[in-house]
């Protein structure tokens, strides 16, 4: 009974959300129509997705999008085509909502693709053009990608002491074999529900290879946790799922990333949100996320050899300094020291470098010790 009720509630909330999204699209199109008929220049306001328009909300500990926006004009040689594309995609999304279906980014590219009447020109030259327009639409409409009925390709794996319901199918994440559960791009409650969770924390690792090491060693079983990976910079689906695990189930999130500017940046994205998706930080960022390692000091602490060193190049050094200057790292002593340590070392270290100690050093010694000592950056 209760279950049915939830389902009904979800369904109705989905319907409400769809109605809201549809309304936003109609408002946008009506504005263009009114401007056109009134002899004014048709424009679409597109909030700027750039660092200049990203605000660090210290209180919330997340990145947020500012008020900066650009006007996309029809009567501007450089924008005329993207204006047309924006209108095409708006119309396509309305179709999707009406038909209650979702499409991939590539699917959307094909949906909007045709030859402009009276010419030999295609509406979209390639999928990149289409993807850019969809990102613009997300921010212009203030709607999430899934609200627009669009999904990205899956990139992320999960395993652990949790049972979920994905689109009505119950999935026990303890019984996922060696491959794990592939995290879909839309993980909103109407798609994924948490049925039962015994895990006490989430360990997120940078990439699949490391994840496999942990999975093979049944780390999640021994330490009663959930093990995830995001294939480098985690996609939205993974970030949203981590956030939901953190927020709804109260699980702390620990990250095990490479000791290089890239790893630091991934942590920053998980924790505070990214510049390009600053408008979604509210529902993606995990301000409580913790950085477990690898630390610059581990080279000595773990007694690693010269062989694991990967020299920092100029780009890395530049990038590290940039990260050090991020407002959310700037006043953070631990992080300033960490980045300084990296630069002083003059080399990067991957998580896999711990394998030089022992195949299972990372799963049996490194992580358990850190967790026990609560030795992390936050």
């Amino acid at each position, binding site marked *: 009974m209760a279950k049915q009720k939830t389902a009904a509630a979800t369904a109705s909330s989905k319907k409400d959300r769809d109605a809201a999204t549809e309304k936003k699209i109609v408002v946008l199109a009506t504005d*263009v129509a009114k401007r056109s008929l009134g002899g004014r220049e048709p424009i679409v306001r597109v909030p700027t997705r750039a660092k200049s328009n990203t605000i660090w909300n210290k209180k919330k500990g997340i990145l947020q999008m500012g008020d900066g926006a650009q006007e996309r004009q029809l009567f501007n040689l450089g924008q005329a085509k993207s204006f047309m594309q924006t209108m095409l995609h708006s119309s396509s999304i309305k179709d999707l909502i009406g038909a209650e279906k979702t499409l991939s980014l590539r699917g959307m590219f094909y949906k909007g693709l045709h030859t402009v009447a009276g010419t030999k020109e295609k509406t979209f030259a390639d999928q990149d053009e289409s993807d850019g327009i969809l990102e613009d639409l997300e921010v212009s409409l203030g709607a999430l990608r899934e609200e627009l009925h669009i999904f990205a390709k899956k990139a992320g794996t999960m395993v652990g002491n949790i049972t979920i319901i994905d689109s009505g199918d119950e999935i026990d994440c303890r019984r996922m074999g060696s491959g794990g559960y592939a995290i879909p791009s839309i993980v909103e409650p109407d798609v994924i529900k948490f049925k039962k969770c015994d895990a006490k924390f989430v360990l997120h690792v940078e990439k699949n290879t490391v994840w496999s090491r942990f999975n093979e060693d049944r780390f999640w079983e021994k330490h009663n946790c959930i093990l995830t990976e995001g294939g480098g910079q985690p996609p939205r689906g993974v970030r949203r799922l981590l956030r939901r695990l953190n927020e709804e189930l109260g699980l702390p999130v620990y990250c095990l990333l490479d000791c290089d500017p890239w790893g630091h940046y991934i942590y920053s994205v998980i924790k505070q949100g990214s510049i390009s998706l600053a408008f979604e930080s509210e529902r993606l960022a995990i301000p409580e996320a913790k950085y477990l390692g690898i630390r610059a000091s581990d080279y000595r602490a773990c007694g690693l050899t010269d062989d694991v060193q990967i020299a920092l190049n100029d780009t890395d050094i530049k990038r590290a300094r940039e990260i050090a200057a991020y407002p959310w790292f700037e006043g953070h002593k631990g992080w300033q020291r960490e980045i300084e340590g990296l630069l002083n070392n003059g080399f990067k270290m991957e998580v896999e470098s711990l394998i030089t100690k022992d195949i299972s050093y990372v799963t049996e010694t490194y992580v358990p010790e850190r967790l026990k000592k609560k030795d992390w950056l936050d």
Partner: protein
Amino acid sequence: MAAKEAVAMAEPKKKSVAPRADAESMAARQRDISVSEFFAKNRHLLGFDNPRKAMLTTVKEAVDNSLDACEEAGILPEIAVIVEDLEPGRPATAKSSRYRVTIIDNGPGIVRKQVENIFGRLLYGSKFHRLKMSRGQQGIGISAAGMYGLITTGRPMTIFTKPKAGQPTHHIELAMNTKTNRAEVNFDKEVKEFPPKRFRDLTPGTRALAEQGGFLTESEFPTGTSVSIELDGKYQRGRGSVDEFLELTAIANPHARFVFVPPSRVTEDEEPDVLAAAEAGAAAKATVTTETNGVIVYPRGVQELPPETKEIQPHPKGIELGILLQMLKDYELAEKGGTLYNFLQERFCRVSASTASSMCDAIGVSSRAKAGDIEPPQAEKLYKVFQESKLAPPPTDCLAPIGVRQMLAGMLKGVRAEFYAASSREAEVYRGRPFQIEAAIAFGGELPGDETARVIRFANRVPLLFQQSACSSFKAVVETAWKNYNLSQPRGTLPVGPLVIMIHMASVWVPFTSESKEAIADYDEIRKEMKLALMECGRKLGTYLRKRQKMRREGERRDVFERYIGEIAKAINAITGDDPKAIYEALLKQAKSRTAVADQLLDEDGKVVKEDLAETDDEGVLIIPDAIAPAVAAATSTPLAPLDLDGKAKAASKRGARKAAEPKAAAAPKRAAKPEPESAARTELRARAAKAAGRGKAGGEDGARLF
């Protein structure tokens, strides 16, 4: 070849038996050569090299004389050129044929006693001995033509001349005796009619034109002269033809009206008529060149005669030593005992009393010294003094340039372009002789775009048709950097593009490279002025072309906007249900107003053109907006496929869409529905422009903006 030479060499040896000629026997054979005889043998020097050129030269000499005579008498020239084919039945392969060329003018006529001299003697005329700007210079032309006719056909020249209104006309036939350089009159009678009525009924075309009062109307010819010469010639159109000569003469003489009746049969390749046939009724009145029933009318473009030119004395720096000696001799003959002091002041320009006395001092003679007493060494000294003294340049009121406005009017009627510019330089001096250079260019319109520019050259309003590359003006065109004015120009050649370049040199003495007056000698001073004039025109063209380019860019911008408007209207319709057609039209309207520059020259009334081009320095610029439409529209107009509101876009190619665009289609731009380029409306517009060009005061040399 070598063998032949050997024989030739051997021949004298064989003849060596005969007594060699001695001074006595040679003296017996030595005698005067009459000028006529000389030229009869060397007719190529006068432009009678071949039958085709002979025909042209005959027409040219007669027309030059007619124009000079009319202008001197202050009459607006009305000239008919009639070429009759006397052997219409000849085989098609004939290289030449017998023609009768008749030129009739409304000039002052010729008094009876001068007829023989003017038409029957070479080197007889009023123009050789003076420094005054005129077409003819030596007095060879028309008599040489008559001589050529006599030699090739044995037929005398027929002359009708009416020197006084209301008085009888002299009908004279005369043949030149080449030995005596004198004419022999075969026929001399007084008749009533002038011009000869016979010509009005010559062809259906002449009849029709005469009926409208546009051909040899008696009242238009109160006085005048008609010359007919029968000759062995060839009539063929194209470069260097009678047609081209008249076309160019009409351009350089917009104050004259020409009617040309070509022969009924043209030798060899009969080209299609270049000129579009206008409605018959318009032929008599139109201000652009028209052709009706084979008769070509070059109408009058401006109503005022060129200003009368003054005769000047030579400038001291412009003469040679030999001439100075001759002048001294002549002065002594004319003014027995005249002083050198007076001689200098009277026989030269720009020599004042004080200059004269200081010149006398400089050669060490008293100012009272008689001109006849000056010895050659002293004369030589004087000549050197001339070269060293600082003298004002010769006066320039002896020159009658065509004028900016008149050049534009002339170009307008003869060249179908979209852009015309003209410039007139200040007078300058070469070798002590004043001259003035003018240039004009016509661009675009119906001119061929992928050929090298056509250069039309004039000296004292006479077109120069041959030896282009030997001409100073040609070199000036080649040396001008046309690339600076947005034209392409392969290194060391003429520019390429839809361009006609006109260069005119006005001078009291045009330095031709030969007696046949075909090319202007290459003096640095002259070439420099030519280049400056061309650069002035070029700058105007450059400004115009950049403007046009901007329009084209705006047109392309519009293109882009218009392309997407249909898609946007459909998308909005799918979202909001708004009427897509209304949105489409509203957006199209916006797109047009935002790219309005593209329309500026496309407007039918051309008003925007005026406003817009007023910003540029458009002195001496004439633009025919209608002529631009086809060219620019082709580049800018977006052929909008009629918006298919049912969803499916009509697969229409650009070209197809343009054809399909009809005025009623909401999307069809106004300009797409323009009539064919050479429509009646177009002709009318040209006529309007020509009228505008022809209006105004004679002094309008500043080339007031016409549009």
